[in-house]
C-alpha cells in the first residue's frame, strides 16, 4: 500500500468513525484491508484502491468500518472492575433505586458481546445474594459484523476461556457439538443490541445508571474524545457512573467529572449530577 492509498483509507476511516490510523499502523490497516480484497475477489491492492476511488458503496463502507474497529475483547475484562461491580457498585446502586425502577446499563462499543454478557452474568450471580430489580443492558457497536456475532452469543472454546471462570461457563452456557459454547437464552435476552456510531447522537438510547465506555476513546482524536465524553455525560442518570478503560482517564479531556476511586476501581460521576 503506497502513501497515497494509505492516506485515502485512513482519512476516510477517521472522517467516518474518528479512529486514527497513524503511519506506524500502516501494516495493521493493510492486513485488515486484505480481508475486503478477498470479499470482493480482488487480486491487487491497486484494484481495491481504484474501486474505492470510484465510489464507496454502503456495503464497502460497512466492511471498512468493521475492519477498522478493534474487536478484540474478553469476558470479565479487568478483574478489579468486575469485583467492584459485584461487591459494591451494583449492590449500592440497586439499594438506591426507587421501587419499580429498572436498572439500566449501557455497554458502548460492545464488540462481540463479551462485556454486556459479563455484566448480565454478574447480575445473575448477584441475584443469588440479594434482590435484583428488572434490568436492561443496552449494548451498542458500530460494526454490524460484531453485532451479528454478539447476537449469536456463540463463542469458540478459546474465547470462552478468556476471562470467564469455569464455574460460570458451565452454568450460563451450553456446549454445542462443534466445541462452540452458546450463552443461555435467559442471559442473552437481558441484553438489547443496537448499532451505534459513537459520533452520532445518543439521545435515542435514554439514560443509564452505569455506562461502560472502555478501551474505545484511546483510538479517538482528542476533539472526538471530548465530544463523546460530554455527550455520554448527558446520558447518565443523577449519580450515574461512567467507566473507562484501565488505560484511559479524563485528564486533558474534561473537568466536568469527579473521579470516584474504590478498591482500585475508578469511576466517573458528573459534577453537575452529584
Amino acid at each position, binding site marked *: 500500500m503506497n502513501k497515497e492509498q494509505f492516506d485515502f483509507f485512513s482519512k476516510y476511516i477517521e472522517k467516518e468513525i474518528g479512529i486514527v490510523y497513524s503511519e506506524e499502523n500502516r501494516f495493521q490497516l493493510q492486513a485488515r484491508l486484505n480481508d475486503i480484497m478477498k470479499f470482493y475477489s480482488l487480486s491487487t491492492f491497486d484494484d481495491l484502491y481504484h474501486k474505492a476511488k470510484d465510489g464507496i458503496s454502503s456495503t464497502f463502507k460497512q466492511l471498512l468500518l468493521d475492519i477498522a474497529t478493534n474487536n478484540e475483547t474478553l469476558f470479565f475484562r479487568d478483574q478489579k472492575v468486575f469485583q467492584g461491580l459485584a461487591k459494591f457498585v451494583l449492590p449500592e446502586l440497586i439499594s438506591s433505586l426507587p421501587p419499580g425502577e429498572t436498572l439500566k446499563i449501557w455497554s458502548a462499543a460492545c464488540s462481540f458481546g463479551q462485556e454486556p454478557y459479563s455484566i448480565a452474568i454478574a447480575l445473575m450471580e448477584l441475584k443469588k445474594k440479594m434482590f435484583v430489580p428488572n434490568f436492561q443492558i443496552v449494548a451498542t457497536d458500530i460494526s454490524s459484523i460484531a453485532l451479528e456475532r454478539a447476537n449469536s452469543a456463540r463463542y469458540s472454546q*478459546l474465547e470462552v476461556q*478468556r476471562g470467564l471462570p469455569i*464455574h460460570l461457563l458451565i452454568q450460563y452456557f451450553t456446549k454445542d457439538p462443534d466445541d462452540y459454547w452458546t450463552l443461555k437464552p435467559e442471559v442473552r435476552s437481558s441484553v438489547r443490541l443496537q448499532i451505534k456510531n459513537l459520533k452520532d447522537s445518543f439521545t435515542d438510547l435514554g439514560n443509564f445508571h452505569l455506562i461502560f465506555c472502555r478501551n474505545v476513546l484511546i483510538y479517538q482524536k482528542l476533539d472526538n474524545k471530548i465530544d463523546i465524553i460530554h455527550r455520554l455525560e448527558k446520558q447518565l442518570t443523577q449519580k450515574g457512573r461512567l467507566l473507562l478503560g484501565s488505560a484511559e482517564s479524563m485528564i486533558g479531556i474534561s473537568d466536568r467529572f469527579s473521579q470516584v476511586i474504590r478498591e482500585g476501581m475508578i469511576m466517573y460521576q458528573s459534577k453537575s449530577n452529584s
Partner: protein
Amino acid sequence: MIQVLMVDDAKSVHAFTKNCLLGTKVELFPAYDGQQALDELAKGTRSFQLILLDWEMPVLDGPKTFAELKKQNINIPVIMMTSRNSIEDISNMLAAGVSEYIMKPFTKDILISKIESILGTEVSA
C-alpha cells in the same frame, strides 16, 4: 519463584506449557503420570503452590490422582488441563474440588490468566 507441579503424559504439552511460562515467575516441575506426581509431593523437597493436572494418563489418571491428594489432605490448588470438555466431566471435577479447568488446546494468555486467577497474583516477571 512460584513452584508449580505439572502432571501430563505428553512431552509436547510439557514443552508448550514451559514455553508459555518462560520469563514469568513460574518454575515448572514435571511429572508424567499421577503416581510420579504423588511421589514428588511425598518427597516434600518443593513447596508447590499449584498443580496442573491432565485427565488421561497411564498408571494413575487425573481424577484418581486428585482423589488421592484429597485423601492425603494435600490442599494445593489444582487446575485440570485436559481435552475432555463435556459439561458433565467439568462439573464432576469442580464438584470434587478442583479450582479451575483449562480445556486443551489452550493459549499462553489463557494459561497465564487462569494461573493468576487461582494464585491471586500476577506471574509475569
